[in-house]
């Protein structure tokens, strides 16, 4: 093999190696992969909180059942599930290059998030009005209030962060600084917030309904 052949062979091998090194994991772009890793880590956080809640509920003697109706929580669930659908519409329009519609559906999703947060706060203030605080509640073990406000507060924090992210990413997408992939990645986070709520509702609300 001549010196020239060896040189060409080395160049080809180097380009193949570079391709392997830069190929995205699972054919997923790096930014999306980072969001998936965050979602996995965050699901561990929520799972930890919910398992701790179950542990304490199981080990507490006088666990209260203070919820008398499901209207508020059903409405919150409906709004959050609907916001996932509107987020899907935003992503679909972004993929097809319709910036105006994608931005509009992103803002509708953010409005749904704000409505959810408002209903959540209304419920919190109602409970606080009845005497429940982070360290005390009038119905039984104080741990109930601690866990209720901690778990729903952590979720509300995620919703609030998601609303801010939706507005910022939506505006930057409309301005041309972000693309459809960025909107889809924000959508992944929003769907995750919805997914967590699917576990919070039965465990924290429905199992504590007064019958």
């Amino acid at each position, binding site marked *: 093999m001549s010196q020239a052949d060896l040189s060409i062979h080395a160049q080809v091998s180097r380009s193949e190696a570079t391709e392997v090194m830069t190929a995205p994991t*699972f*054919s*997923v772009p790096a930014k999306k992969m980072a969001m*998936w890793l965050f*979602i*996995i880590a965050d*699901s*561990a956080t929520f*799972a*930890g909180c919910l*398992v701790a809640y*179950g*542990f*304490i509920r*199981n*080990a*507490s*003697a006088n666990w209260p059942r203070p919820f008398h109706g*499901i209207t508020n929580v*059903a409405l919150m*669930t*409906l709004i959050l*599930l*609907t916001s*996932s*659908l509107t*987020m*899907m*519409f935003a992503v*679909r329009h972004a993929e*097809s290059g319709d910036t105006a519609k994608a931005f509009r559906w992103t803002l509708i999703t953010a409005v749904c998030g704000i409505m959810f947060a408002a209903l959540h706060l209304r419920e919190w203030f109602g409970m606080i009005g009845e005497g429940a605080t982070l360290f005390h509640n009038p119905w039984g073990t104080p741990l109930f209030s601690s866990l209720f406000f901690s778990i729903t507060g952590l979720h509300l924090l995620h919703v609030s962060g998601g609303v801010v992210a939706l507005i910022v990413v939506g505006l930057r997408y409309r301005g041309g600084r972000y693309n459809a992939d960025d909107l889809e990645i924000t959508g*992944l986070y929003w*769907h*995750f917030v*919805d*997914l967590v709520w*699917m*576990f919070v*509702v*039965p*465990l924290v609300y*429905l*199992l504590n*309904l007064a*019958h």
Partner: protein
Amino acid sequence: MTTAGASNSSAGKDIAVYGCLLALAGIQFLIAYSDITASQMFVRMLIVAMVEAGVALLFFMHLWENRGLKWFVIIFTVAVILGMQYGWTDSFRLSNGVPWAK
């Protein structure tokens, strides 16, 4: 299929998934009012929640379209969540060992 046709088909699929999630959420609310023990209620609600989460993961979060990522997410998440279950036996020991236990 044209771009408009594909877009309508995707929107139809998204609405069908949304309807499915609403129905599953409705089942959870029905279970809450059924006449069963707390542990039966817990198990049934958890199963419905897992199915609901699975549908959202596969179709809203597009895991269905990426086989490698799907298994990566499933194995990591299930391993972490299963790892957290070791505390339950201690929880039952606490409820049976405390002074108010019968």
